[in-house]
Structure formats: C-alpha cells, structure tokens
C-alpha cells in the first residue's frame, strides 16, 4: 500500500537558517510527488511538484527514488515561511497526504 511519512511534527528554525522538511514514501510504481502548504487562515495550496523541478519561494525538493524520499529544502528561512507543510503523492489521480510538519520561523 502506498504511504507518505513525515517524521517531524514540528520544526522550529531561526530566520536565515536552512530548513529541511523530510518526506519518505512507499509506493511500488513511479509516483508523482508534491508539497502542499497551508499558511495561517488560508486554504491548502500547492507549493511545488517534482516533475516541474522548479524552485518556488526559494524552496526546492528532489525526488530520490533510491531512498524513496522527497525532502523539501530552503537555504535561508524567512518568517513568512511559517506554515503547515504536507507532502503528498498521487497514484492514478488519488492524492494522498502525509501527516504534515508545522514550521515555525523565529526572528
């Protein structure tokens, strides 16, 4: 069965420090992976997807099929990055989410 694991419930970092959110998955085929973000009082929205291989708001994520990971990284955290982050994968259109990581960036 497919599964998305985010081992950290809470990540607290200082402004300007690097931040890395871990995501591991289990899936037998070739998954499509995403990071979704939810800022305070806003709706859940797509941050980035692995097939686009782009950097959004300074965040990047690389799919590592060998380690079945899709970690999200940003070299210098900003206060506006404080939010809830969800890793997700899609299997034949069925979008499945991890439990989420709360990121708190302190000045």
């Amino acid at each position, binding site marked *: 069965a497919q599964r998305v694991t985010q081992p950290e419930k809470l990540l607290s970092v200082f402004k300007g420090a690097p931040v890395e959110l871990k995501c591991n998955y289990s899936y037998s085929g070739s998954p499509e992976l995403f990071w979704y973000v939810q800022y305070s009082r806003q709706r*859940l929205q797509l941050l980035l997807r692995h097939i686009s291989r782009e950097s959004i708001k300074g965040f990047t994520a690389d799919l590592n099929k060998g380690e079945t990971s899709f970690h999200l990284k940003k070299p210098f955290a900003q206060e506006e990055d404080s939010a809830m982050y969800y890793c997700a994968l899609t299997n034949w259109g069925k979008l499945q989410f991890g439990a989420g990581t709360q990121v708190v960036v302190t000045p």
Partner: protein
Amino acid sequence: EAGVAQSPRYKIIEKRQSVAFWCNPISGHATLYWYQQILGQGPKLLIQFQNNGVVDDSQLPKDRFSAERLKGVDSTLKIQPAKLEDSAVYLCASSLTGDTEAFFGQGTRLTVV
C-alpha cells in the same frame, strides 16, 4: 479569482444528528475530492469523483457517510447519524484531471457535541 467554494464554513451539531456539506468546484474541473482532516493529522481522502462517477470511495464510512455529484459539477457530502469522532475539517478539492494540481476550498469545520 473563482476558487473552490464550500459551505457552510462552520457547523456544530449534536451526535446522532445529520449534516450536509456543499462544494462548488472550479468550472471545468472533472475531478472532485472530499477529504476529512482531523486535528493534528493530514487530510484523508474520503471520496473521489471523476465527473459524476465515483473513482474511489474505499475510505468512506458508508454506513453513515454519503456523497453525490449530480451533473458532474456541485457535490454534497452527508453524515447521518453523526458521531463525536466525525469532528473534523471537511475539505473539498478539484482538479482538471486526476493528475493535475488540486485546488482546495477553505473547508467546513464540523464539531459534534
């Protein structure tokens, strides 16, 4: 911009009562999802529609939950009777197809007392 609309935003009911949620997806989106998000957990897929047909409802508690998407546009999710453990945020999302970006509504926060 026109996004996914959900109503109501909040609902408080007593256990054993019934409740219904409504979702209007983005125009032209064939795929519609209903998710349940319990506090402290990630969204859990309840049901997925492709147009007006059900693609996946394997995690829908069918003894009390039902959903429909008449005419392949709007959708309603109903709970009857509600239990305390149904307290959660119910999210609706839509996408052009199942493999494109999903756009989420603001959700309905249900409290069962």
